[in-house]
């Protein structure tokens, strides 16, 4: 004798293959009264249709800013992507794409990332020269390495949407990674230094004609703003 649970599982296609076949035969042979089947009949498609519009009415998430942590953002980013909230666009104040791309990249850095790179002056000189050539700027090692408390470690060439994006990497005394990033950008307008927080990282941004700049790292917005002003004054 079949239970209502068995019939339900049959209707849902959840019985093992052999039992599905046996139940089908039992129904065809009239061994299960039609009234029992009717009592369990449900239009699953109608149910699915009825709930579908709810997907379109879901609100966007407005989550508070994440606390600064070094490891969490990288882990959280994968979860956030799955949830669909996009740490970059929902968790923080809206930012144009490149700043958040930089923040995501920076969030992957840990204390050990840059501290293993020796600040070799010859190498750094070559890297800065290459950076200047690509950007059309004239930044000196003295300017780049002249902010107290930060040690210049590396300048590397990246790209964002076909534009040159330079990341100049620093460490604080305790190894905390910091970056100064420059995006070559046509039509950018003059904007003074302003601070924000991206993925829990203190961030300062500014622009002049042709370039967007950003300093990011740690959890001290004043430090990033001071660093930004130091650079902005010389570039």
């Amino acid at each position, binding site marked *: 004798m079949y239970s209502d649970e068995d019939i339900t599982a049959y209707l849902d296609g959840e019985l093992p293959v052999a039992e599905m076949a046996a139940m089908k035969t039992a129904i065809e042979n009239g061994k299960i009264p039609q009234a029992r089947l009717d009592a369990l009949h449900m239009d699953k498609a*109608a149910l699915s249709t009825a709930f579908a519009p709810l997907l379109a009415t879901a609100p966007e998430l407005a989550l508070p800013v994440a606390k600064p942590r070094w490891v969490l953002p990288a882990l*959280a980013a994968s*979860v956030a992507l799955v949830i669909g909230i996009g740490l970059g666009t929902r968790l923080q104040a809206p930012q144009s794409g490149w700043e958040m791309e930089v923040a995501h990249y920076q969030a992957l850095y840990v204390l050990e990332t840059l501290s293993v790179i020796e600040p070799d002056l010859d190498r750094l000189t070559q890297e800065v020269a290459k950076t200047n050539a690509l950007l059309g700027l004239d930044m000196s090692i003295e300017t780049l390495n002249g902010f107290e408390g930060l040690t210049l470690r590396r300048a590397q060439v990246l790209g964002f949407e076909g534009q040159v994006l330079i990341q100049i990497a620093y460490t604080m005394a305790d190894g905390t990674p910091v970056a100064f990033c420059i995006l070559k950008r046509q039509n950018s307008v003059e904007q003074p230094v302003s601070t924000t927080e991206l993925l829990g990282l203190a961030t300062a941004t500014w622009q002049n004609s042709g370039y967007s700049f950003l300093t990011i790292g740690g959890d001290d917005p004043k430090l990033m703003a001071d660093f930004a002003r130091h650079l902005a004054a010389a570039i």
Partner: protein
Amino acid sequence: MHPRLWRFAYGLVRNRAAADDLAQATCLRALEKAGQFQKGTHADRWIFTICRNIWLNDLRAGKLRLGMGVVPADESDLQAKNCDPVENIFASEVLTKVMALPDAQRETVLLTYVEGFSYKDTAAMLDIPIGTVMSRLSAARKALAPLNKEVE
């Protein structure tokens, strides 16, 4: 994923504002527990489980008892736009019936029939035996069956 999460949350709490809160709390908890998520496993099941656990805790704490009445078919919010009005009425009735199910049946229906999870996955998310999933769905089908007859 977020619209599905919100829909599931709405199905649990049956109230738009509470669904907003539950979905948001779920996302925050998921971010906090991101390190516990096992790569290669199904994120949707993990997040639905977090959502349901928060809902259960809120129920136990009495946070959801007052002011969280059944508002199952807010026509301005929930109906498909540009649909046949008759279809909308039917959809509204289906929603109303599902939302009126007892909590245990409703959460099982939401996961199995709305979200399309297998009995096995639903059982795992609700931390119950598959037999319990079957009995809940059986009871829910009986409760929803009259709707078919009314419409037919």
